[in-house]
């Protein structure tokens, strides 16, 4: 069952309110997305915990209804990744 990008963003923001969410539809099929989530709430969390926080926000859809979600997480002020 495909999921809309806007729905993914809505769910993430519902549990991580300050999140800046950027979503790309990788295959145009509503089933393969890349998401970048930037939030202050990730501060002090390692990458595993940051990803887990996003998976939790998506409430068990990742790995099921949402098959492919490439995920990148970051804290705003330690941003040094080139865009």
């Amino acid at each position, binding site marked *: 069952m495909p999921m809309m990008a806007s729905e993914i963003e809505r769910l993430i923001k519902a549990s991580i309110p300050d999140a800046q969410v950027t979503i790309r539809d990788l295959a145009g099929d509503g089933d393969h997305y890349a998401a970048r989530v930037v939030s202050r709430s990730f501060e002090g969390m390692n*990458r*595993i915990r940051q*990803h887990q926080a996003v*998976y939790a926000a998506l409430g068990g859809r990742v*790995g*099921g209804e949402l098959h*492919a979600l490439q995920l*990148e997480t970051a804290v705003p002020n330690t941003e040094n990744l080139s865009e």
Partner: protein
Amino acid sequence: MSDAQTRIEQLVKSNDVVLFMKGTPLFPQCGFSSRAIAILERLGRQYETVDVLQDPEIRQGIKQYSDWPTVPQLYVKGEFVGGSDIMMEMFETGELQQLVGADA
């Protein structure tokens, strides 16, 4: 601890580098597993793989083992490292090479 959890723990503890994946290194059955294998190949260090498609118990159990909803999952020296996105990030920063003790 269920039988599957015990088996997973044994696999994780008895292999320095082990990837739980869909398919095999030669024939990965999913783009993320394929990407994980490509990264491990670049590390040039020996690794084990477990094909979760061949074992429904492990396929289900591995999600609970590290509270992680997807496969592939990489474990190094008994510790959960992450999925293919984290592997890629750590490969790009050189952390993964350091973690497994690779040369480059």
